[in-house]
């Protein structure tokens, strides 16, 4: 039950294959694995599917579009209505070079949770009567209509936490949790960047946000500050 500790983010992501589905933790600037995203850019792998809350909101995920690494994005924020700022992803999406699957945020997290928790799906009212329900099964139960949402998993998850211990336990700070703890459960290979690597026992058992067994790889690095001002 040891997580593998890597010296650099580049080394931690070097064997991610072309075409992989990658869960990317974080919400705009909070809990976002920017070092791992930039390392993934260095690999040059292509045909990737990124699952993330947002792309092009000050996050660095849009950097992967510079070399057209993203074939598809599954996200909640992607193309801004106002059009005041554009992203590389937006340009590639408009050119038909990259695909977009927009998912309501509460549904995205439940699909990921189902993927990690061995559930075959959940029933939600979110999206009923909208384009999000197209092609999906609805069930009527006791006179109420529900939309069936199916699980979502990744080949790889890229996470950001505050501290990690050598077993792989992760501790988050403030609103840095967001998608990270659930994504940790829903990928075959889980890679976390942390600000500090500590010895097992230094993170109090009550403060572990992601238990060790979910984390395969750890890398300690200075967080890269990003910011989005709307």
């Amino acid at each position, binding site marked *: 039950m040891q997580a593998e500790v890597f010296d650099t983010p580049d080394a931690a992501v070097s064997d991610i294959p072309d075409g992989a589905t990658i869960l990317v933790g974080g919400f705009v600037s909070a809990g976002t694995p920017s070092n791992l995203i930039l390392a993934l850019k260095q690999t040059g792998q292509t045909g990737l599917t990124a699952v993330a809350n947002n792309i092009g909101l000050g996050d660095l995920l849009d950097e992967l579009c510079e070399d057209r690494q993203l074939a598809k994005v599954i996200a909640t*924020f992607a193309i*801004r209505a106002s059009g005041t700022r554009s992203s590389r992803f937006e340009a590639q999406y408009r050119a038909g070079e990259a695909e977009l699957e927009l998912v309501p945020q509460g549904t995205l997290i439940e699909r990921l949770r189902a993927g990690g928790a061995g559930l075959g799906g959940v029933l939600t009212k*979110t999206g009923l009567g909208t384009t999000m329900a197209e092609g999906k099964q609805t069930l009527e139960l006791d006179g109420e209509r529900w939309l069936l949402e199916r699980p979502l998993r990744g080949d790889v998850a890229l996470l950001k936490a505050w501290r990690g211990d050598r077993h792989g336990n992760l501790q988050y700070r403030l609103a840095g949790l967001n998608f990270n703890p659930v994504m940790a459960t829903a990928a075959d290979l889980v890679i976390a960047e942390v600000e500090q690597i500590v010895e097992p026992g230094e993170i109090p058992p009550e403060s572990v946000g992601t238990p060790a067994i979910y984390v395969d790889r750890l890398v300690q690095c200075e967080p890269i500050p990003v910011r989005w001002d709307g």
Partner: protein
Amino acid sequence: MTNATPPAGLSRELIALRAARELEPGWVVNLGIGLPTLVAGFVEPSDNILFQAENGILGYSGISESDFDSDLINAGGQPVDLVPGASFFDTADSFAMIRGGHIDAAVLGGLQVSEQGDLANWYVPARGGGSVGGAMDLAVGARKLIIAMAHVTREGEPRIVEACDYPLTAERCVDVIITDLAVIDVTESGLMLRERAPGITAAAVEEWTGAALLIPDDVPEMSL
């Protein structure tokens, strides 16, 4: 509906202020990105309103003026200050809170609202793609849904319509619409004009509204 210019109504700040008046003491409230985030600036601390940010915060008091901490932001990416008794949680727990009906009110922006209270606020057909965020879950889950938006588009087209032609966020979800011109309730009988912006007549509101509007005999002007 005309090609004339709509009358000058409330500023964005005053729309936010008026929306803040819809919130009751002790409520838990989620604010959408854009105009709605301004609402946090217009509540009285003594009202003990708790703001929830869907990225995992319960109990922020408003936009922070201090140093930016990238891990302490609201759903619009803005730095926030916490109140004593705040808490953090992950996205799954946050949307359990939202979808499960534990949020008293959400204030969201709107592109269109229909007579039945259908909301469209995530997709501009001319732009495509879209950004849905937590809007669909908030529209379904918030006990009271307040839409704060401009009464008409930049082109002078009504945003309050018989039926939305933009893709929906959710059906029959809106409770109140607050615009630069009016406060309108979505009721069982239809859209009901509750208040006019200062200097705006009920007739003007009706003129710039693309759906049937129930107008009581006496429609008070907002007190701001």
